[in-house]
């Protein structure tokens, strides 16, 4: 029972790290970026290449995955995304789904279509017993790392000057510019940061979720559920939503395997009926 809860939390944490970048772009920048998963995939492949081709330690791969995905995010934001901030949502969707297909085809061409596997360092594999509860070491590592990231993220957004600039830029772009906030730079940095987080999530998820060229499409639905259930105006909303989905998904598949895969969709429908704007919302937007 507790093991199921633990697995669910680990899975939810992973979903949160993968999806929280999307929360930022969708909720704060008001841009529907379906290509979010492509950045996660980039991070995953960076890890695979570094570990399998060059034998670099897994721990170095995580920051590298973050940086590379963030860099790709920054470049794409400057060259492509920024022209579409004012475009209608349909254009954004079409544009970003196009990026997804290009990413899939490119990855398939260069890396092959097969499932990519990494071998974790020995101290992270296997499981141990904590007070009689079987705990996977890697899942524990995932939970700790993601929890720290969630707290840091929340602090950055709510306590730092950058966070308040970002919120100002989102609330009213014109006034923010008028106050001397360099909105394009703020947006670019935010976008890069969100992409980097996705990359980190992809790197960490390679072990649990697997990694192949179709990663962005496979997980797009999960990202969107997290964001739509969680609401897009805070970090804690998607965090709770991700936890809820992770636990519900794992527990559903364990206790009622026959309808397991549908549990999260059922949950999503109920949540959206009760709180159509997400778990936490500033209301009226």
């Amino acid at each position, binding site marked *: 029972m507790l093991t199921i809860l633990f697995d669910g939390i680990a899975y939810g944490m992973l979903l949160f790290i993968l999806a929280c970048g999307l929360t930022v772009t969708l909720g704060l920048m008001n841009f529907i970026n379906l290509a979010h998963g492509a950045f996660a995939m980039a991070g995953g492949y960076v890890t695979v290449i570094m570990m399998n081709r060059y034998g670099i330690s897994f721990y170095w791969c995580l920051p590298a995955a973050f940086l590379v995905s963030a860099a790709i995010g920054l470049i794409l934001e400057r060259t492509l995304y920024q022209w579409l901030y004012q475009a209608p949502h349909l254009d954004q969707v079409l544009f970003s789904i196009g990026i997804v297909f290009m990413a899939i085809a490119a990855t398939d061409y260069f890396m092959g279509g097969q499932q990519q596997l990494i071998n974790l360092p020995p101290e992270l594999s296997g*499981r141990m017993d904590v007070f009689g509860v079987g705990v996977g070491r890697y899942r524990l590592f995932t939970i700790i790392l993601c929890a720290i990231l969630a707290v840091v993220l929340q602090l950055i957004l709510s306590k730092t000057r950058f966070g308040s600039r970002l919120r100002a830029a989102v609330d009213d772009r014109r006034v923010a510019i008028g106050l001397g906030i360099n909105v394009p730079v703020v947006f670019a940095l935010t976008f890069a940061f969100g992409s980097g987080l996705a990359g980190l999530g992809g790197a960490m998820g390679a072990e649990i979720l697997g990694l192949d060229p179709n990663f962005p499409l496979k997980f797009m639905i999960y990202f969107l559920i997290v964001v739509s259930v969680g609401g897009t105006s805070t970090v804690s909303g998607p965090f709770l939503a991700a936890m809820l989905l992770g636990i519900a998904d794992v527990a559903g598949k364990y206790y009622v395997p026959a309808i397991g895969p549908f549990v999260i969709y059922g949950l999503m429908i109920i949540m959206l009926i009760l709180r159509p704007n997400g778990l936490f919302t500033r209301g009226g937007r």
Partner: protein
Amino acid sequence: MLKRRTLIAAASVALCGLAAIPAYAQETIKVGLILPMTGPFASTGRQVSAGAKTFIATHGDTVAGKKIELVIRDDAGTADQTRRIAQELVVNDGAKVLAGFGLTPLAMAVGPVATQAKIPTVVMAAGTASITKASEYITRTSGTLPQYSLPVGTWAAQNGIKKVVTLVSDYGPGIDAEKWFSKEFKAKGGEITEAVRVPLANPDFAPFLQRVRDAKPDAVFVFLPSGAGALFMKQFADRGLTEAGVKLIATGDVTDDDILNSMGKPALGTITGHFYATAHDSPENKAYVAAFKKGNPDMRPNFMSVGGYDGMALIYAALEKTKGDPTGPAFMAAVKGLSWVSPRGPVSIDPETRDIIQNIYMREVKDVGGELHNVEFATFKDLKDPEKAEAK
């Protein structure tokens, strides 16, 4: 990158070859190879086409005075495309034989085309038993899931395994595997404590594995498509099921030779049943692996590649018998009862069902000279597809 370049090179060489002999109009027979070359099942397409090309590279491109031309088309793994491409190949390109088909629904979609146009159709990869019933012009050179799930049940019952949990992907082949393994295992006195079905697009196996662990069986029988199988294997080891005394037995799809080596230590000791292993010990297979690696240095031939190779072997042998007549009725009459020695061992085509009869091997994953391989240790000889055998 490299592969594509060699492909272009090969294609241009082939073109030059064509240009050089326009004088005597040699009749060509087009073989339309429809495979998922892109998308999630691209590795199937790559293996099958590499196997088919290896056959042509080693046996030449003429048979019974006719030139064989391979036309490879990509259906990206979607059934409506497969059907459209099959129609185009037959109507516009004049293909006389269709082959390939990576997945069951793709092969099924072509059934009506094969029947109406009377086109011989060779299934090289898809594994659900009922495919050959879709048209009387369909034959198969891969294998069927019942065919290689059943012996795993026999083996398990004979080797002191009493309680088993089955865990399969929730789609046609998975249900086939579950049904035939359970049936055989129960008939031999075993007990199935639980049957778990996993959705096809499943990101995390944690809940299902925990269920297996809590059921405390002697072994868990698994069928999953190859990519998901690798992921499963790692989580199986991570959850400490091996230490808990649960054996992993599976169909050979899970320990696919193509990616087995990258699975690492967790795969060691897995027992699987299947019709082909790269490490199969025979002179035919040694020659095949060497020829395959020559054309594809960074790939390892797996069971799909051998399906492609044998598919071409079947087409050649049938054309030899009909003296180069590729029309449906004559070709299919020639196919029935054909037998030859494949890299996987002796195989033949059942005259009644047009399905393949072959040996199924039990293998264990072992470290052979620094590489992980499926090492065969027992053989079930000349098995027919049990589902169609039973229906009679």
